[in-house]
């Protein structure tokens, strides 16, 4: 387990009416060790809000019997301290602002990469349940996200902001194959695609790997048939 949320379980509530998408999220989050509670409509979602002290809630806005935004408000009124990520097909700035104002911690637009979802869940969970100063470890690598510092066997590695973000993304999705599109979208948002090439992803990845290997870290990044990359110990 990468993160150890001692006070919390690893429970995640997903409110999503599209069964197939729900299934994908449950499977992928399951691979990460998260336990998912599922609600496919507004009414069920309301009933499940208080059932657990969730690490994070993933709430869809367009529900057949209600607005997911009301669910977010309801959770906040109940003094829930869980992280909340809105997942929605609506991409307007007003919608994002409304979502964050209602009390959500993050807003993810469909269709999204599952790897990005996991990275965001980790990020939100860290923000809501850790009081800073936490340390993430993977093999020889030690990262202090709050301090923006990275060490390999206590030797500091001078990574740029983007390279550190990339490393955290890999660590959140360790042992999984992440695609270059996923990396581009996560690091550059709307600037990610539409360039016809992912050269900038390769460049960042190359720099990050070189800096880590230079201080004696094994290269944990493996290229998987040109589809993407896998970050793992073996």
């Amino acid at each position, binding site marked *: 387990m990468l993160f150890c949320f001692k006070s919390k379980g690893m429970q995640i509530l997903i409110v999503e009416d*599209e069964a*197939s*998408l729900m299934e*994908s*999220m449950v*499977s*992928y989050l399951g*691979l990460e060790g998260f336990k998912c509670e599922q609600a496919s409509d507004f009414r069920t979602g309301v009933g499940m809000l208080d059932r657990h002290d969730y690490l994070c809630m993933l709430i869809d806005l*367009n529900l057949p019997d209600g607005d997911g935004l009301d669910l977010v408000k309801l959770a906040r009124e109940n003094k829930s301290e869980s992280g909340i990520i809105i997942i929605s*097909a*609506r*991409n*307007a*700035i*007003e919608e994002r602002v409304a979502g964050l104002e209602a009390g959500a911690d993050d807003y993810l*637009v*469909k*269709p*999204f*990469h*599952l*790897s990005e979802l996991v990275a965001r869940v980790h990020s939100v969970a860290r923000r809501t349940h850790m009081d800073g100063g936490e340390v993430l470890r993977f093999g020889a690598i030690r990262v202090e996200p709050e301090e923006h510092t990275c060490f390999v066997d206590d030797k500091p590695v001078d990574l740029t902001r*983007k390279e550190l973000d990339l490393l955290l993304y890999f660590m959140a999705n360790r042992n*999984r*194959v992440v*695609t270059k*599109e*996923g990396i581009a979208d996560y690091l*550059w948002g*709307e*600037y990610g*695609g*539409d*360039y*016809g*090439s992912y*050269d*900038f992803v390769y*460049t*960042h990845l190359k720099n990050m790997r070189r800096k880590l290997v230079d201080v004696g870290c094994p290269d944990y990044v493996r290229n*998987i*048939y*040109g*589809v*993407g990359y896998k970050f793992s110990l073996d």
Partner: protein
Amino acid sequence: MKLLTKSTLYIATLSLFLFFIMGVIFFQVLRNLSISDLNRELGDLKEVVEVYLDDFWGSQIGALPGIDSLSVRPAGNIVQTEDIFGDTLKYDVKNEQYRTYRYLQYISQKGEEYLLVRIYKSTTPTDKLVERVTLMITLMVILFLAGIFILNRFMFASLWKDFFDAIEKLKRFETTKEPVILGEQDIQEFDELKQVLEVMTRRLSNDYRELKEYTDHTTHELQTPLAVIKSKTELLIQSDKLGAEEMKLLEAINTSVHQLSRLNSTLTLITRIENRQFTEKEEIALEGLLERHLELLEEHIGLKRIVLKKHYQDGGKTLFMDQGLADLLVANLLKNAIVHNIEGGCIELETGPQSLVIRNDGPPLEFNQEELFTRFVRNTRRTGSFGLGLSLVKKVCEYYNFIIEYSFDSQKHTFIIQFPD
């Protein structure tokens, strides 16, 4: 020009013209009347003078009633058979000034003698009369015009009130998109206008709502299956049982889905701009906006070793527009300048009081320059691009009445955006 100003101008021009002509005619008639009056009077006086000359010729000439002045002298060799009327100036000793007189000149035979007689009559009283009458008429004209102006103004305000109401409501329609409902109209033309407007705006309002719903639904309905495909592909990639061949197939699916979802969201954005669904406006500093996007594009600029040249004007230009659209505009222009740049090329940014210039190195366009801002027009070599970026830029410019121009000169592409006041 305002309706009131224009109609007042027409009325003023026409009435001044008519009154001028009428004034001239009136003045002439009045003058002719007074002259023929004087002539008749002089003719009457001629008989008095004849009697007087018969009785008193050769003795002292005394004052004659009704005659202002009389001159009698030998005719000499002047031959004149008919009476002559004329005007002349004579010095008036009493008032020490010249005055105009009407005179009657004729030859009178007294025995053997021929006398040239001139009877004078002052025209001052009649001139004064003409003057007074003209003055009064001018005064009447001024009063009449003033009356027309005031009447026009009041009539205008009350007659056209409903019309201006309708304009105000139509202006609000732009933002509210609610059908324009006007009150009862007692003028037939306005009643027709009201009905036409109501029908039209109701239909527009309906169309707008339906289009909005359609966009909303399409986005949602398309995004969800896309999200499913995307997530399933991602899960499938995690499988250990797949070989290189299967992975290549998955990679192709993954790339296409990625492109499809970008295409969908961009087209949705264009529709939203066309539907004028961006009504929020805020002040945005142009330089700050450019700098923020340059920072985000740092890696892309660095990767091609592109050199940036910035010429920002002092003081800084402030735009008044939607933040999201401002981002869209600048992001797409900069992206365009980077993507179509050459290795080690240059991007020049220039801001002026009313303009933004973005210039970049690059090979000439492969297509007609006029098609640059058209959807789905792009260089054929580039894959993964839809040719929608500049179409978006154009839409944003149209939305805010910005003027965008493109030119290509000595291997440099130049985009100039002019902001209205």
